[in-house]
């Protein structure tokens, strides 16, 4: 639920999320716009208030706006909104259906679109001269390391797995930890321990660590893009390393942010590995890495072919420099392959 509360003569006061439901878990892909820019604060050259910007900035229009100079107002009035995203043409939320939600008028089902080719026989013969095609692809395992304390003293040293063969890379995605339900307050700027106290904000109980609803991960926030490309902001690790079968993957422990970005992240998955100026890809730059794309990635695929079939353990270690306690979502990418007969589709 997203509630908009107004409690003053003209200016609404808050935009509060009171709960998130996701039928299968996972991220919340809905984003509710900020109401931070209210009409009364934008002025024209003449200095007069112009009320017509509210529509552009989204949510400010959702908030009850009292007539300036009105006789009086309610001490506190709130409007409860529900946001929903459903696959298909039917809104699956009963509250919204009762409120008048219509059916979508575009597609009603999930489709698979795929191109089907008919070969020139000459080339088909060539293609089928070796019909067994080996597909080499990668898959992932996902692990979580929760509640790493903040403040530069929080260290992690966790064994993610005892053995995976043909490991390609390790990715750590950090988010502010959800915290616990301990009552109390903590001043902003202080180190947040494992058990962060909670605050009550506008009737909602929020974690003193995330600032979002207590017990709800930040990637379910409708205000935060975390989990859908962004991490939680300004998280960095020092003394970081990944150990594969007990051996350091990074020669010297990674101490500084530029080391992680330049030596590990830059060029990964990019065209030509980022080696060719003027011809590359990747949308995470150093600035973004420092601010809100704090991905810690280590390529560990370099090994002799004979080693690829040997299961190896993966351990991550480092120090959390953020003042917030963090949860680490860790992904291990490993190689896999299957052989297929291109003519019959049979697995060989």
């Amino acid at each position, binding site marked *: 639920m997203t509630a908009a509360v107004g409690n003053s003569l003209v200016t609404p006061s808050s935009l509060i999320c009171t709960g998130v439901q996701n039928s299968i878990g996972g991220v919340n892909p809905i984003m509710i*716009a900020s109401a931070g820019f209210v009409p009364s604060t934008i002025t024209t050259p003449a200095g007069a208030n112009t009320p017509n910007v509210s529509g552009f900035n989204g949510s400010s229009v959702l908030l*009850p706006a009292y007539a300036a100079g009105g006789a009086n107002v309610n001490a506190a*009035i709130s*409007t409860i909104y529900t946001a929903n995203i459903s696959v298909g043409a039917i809104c699956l939320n009963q509250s*919204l259906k009762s409120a008048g939600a219509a059916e979508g008028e*575009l597609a009603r089902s999930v489709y*698979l679109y795929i*191109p089907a080719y008919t070969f020139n026989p000459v080339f088909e013969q060539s293609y089928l001269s070796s019909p067994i095609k080996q597909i080499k692809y990668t898959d992932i395992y996902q692990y979580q390391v929760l509640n790493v304390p903040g403040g530069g003293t929080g260290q992690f040293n966790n064994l993610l797995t005892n053995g995976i063969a043909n490991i390609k890379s390790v990715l750590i995605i950090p988010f502010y930890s959800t915290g616990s339900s301990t009552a109390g307050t903590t001043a902003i700027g202080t180190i947040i321990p494992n058990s962060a106290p909670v605050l009550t904000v506008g009737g909602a109980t929020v974690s003193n660590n995330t600032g979002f609803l207590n017990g709800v991960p930040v990637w379910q926030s409708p205000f935060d893009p975390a*989990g859908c490309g962004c991490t939680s902001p300004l998280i960095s690790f020092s003394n970081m390393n990944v150990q594969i079968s007990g051996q350091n993957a990074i020669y010297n422990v990674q101490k500084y942010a530029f080391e992680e970005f330049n030596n590990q992240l830059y060029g990964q998955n990019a065209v030509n590995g980022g080696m060719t100026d003027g011809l590359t890809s990747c949308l995470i730059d150093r600035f973004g890495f420092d601010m809100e794309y704090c991905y810690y990635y280590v390529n560990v695929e370099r090994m002799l072919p004979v080693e690829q079939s040997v299961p190896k353990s993966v351990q991550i270690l480092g120090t959390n420099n953020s003042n917030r306690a963090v949860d680490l979502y860790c992904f291990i990418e490993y190689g896999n392959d299957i052989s297929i007969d291109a003519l019959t589709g049979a697995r060989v």
Partner: protein
Amino acid sequence: MSDKLVFDLASEVEGSPNVFIRKDWINILDNQNQNYNNNQSVLDTSQLSNSNKYMSYRESYFLMPLLLSLGQTTLPVITQGNVNAGAPGGPDYLTPATTPATKSMDYSIGLKNWFGQMIHSFTLDYNGTTIIQQTPFVNMWNSFKLLTSLSYGDIITQGSTIGFFPDDASAFQYQLNAAASLVGQGTCNNANFRSFAQVGGVVSSQQPALNFNSSNGNDGFIKRQYVTNFDGAGVIGSGGLQYTTLLASGAAGGAGGQGGASSYCNAVWKSYINKKQDQTAAVGALIQCSITAIVYLKHVHSFFNMCPLLKGVFMKIQQPLPQIVS
């Protein structure tokens, strides 16, 4: 020096034969019969395996219809206040359908980066054998892959197709105050309005000094909103003409009061705002976006990105699909 390139181009042999004599785009439906109450989509390729053609899974994509809704589900209780504010049509009443100029909800809601966030996990059976196991949070991994492999040119050419416009990394805010805020709670990067620094008192903004770029508009968010919130009632000129002026007319007052826009968008499956509803004493205000989301299979799993042309393959793809309420 481009001389070598010029020479090579001049020396190229023209008229090489076509590798393929035909390319047909085929579409198949999933097995849900339009019912997604059980939160999953199952799609099998039996139709494709019998077609005797070579399928290119590397180019294939899901077309996923999404319905994004935002509405008042509890009406405000107005116990006092001036008459105009408390009456239908007064300032307290949200009327986006009839007074969009001042009460538009069009930019109040949007989606996070990439339509593929709807795919939380994924299972692939190949000829009856599971070759890709279900792993949660694959969307986080896939987001990282996209962020590190796409280029800025890809955002221009593919961004609006796959709903991919990365968030501005410096525009976030962090709320941890006992008093609630207008922005939201916790980390917020949801400002879609970019303000400007004050210049000689001519233009002012809310942006306080010394806040770096915090709160100063998330360009990625507003671009994603553009993809999904086309509104036929949008004004396209100083004369007050609306987009509906340029679109094939539908029934007067069509769905959501969009008139011609609904007819046009429905015909071509263009994402748009399909319903706007005014608040009355009995029902709340509401806005809905019908979205045609496209998710390439090669972005969902690397197996598809490595697939050669295959004939006679039977695959079964299962995706748990969320329905999310905030």
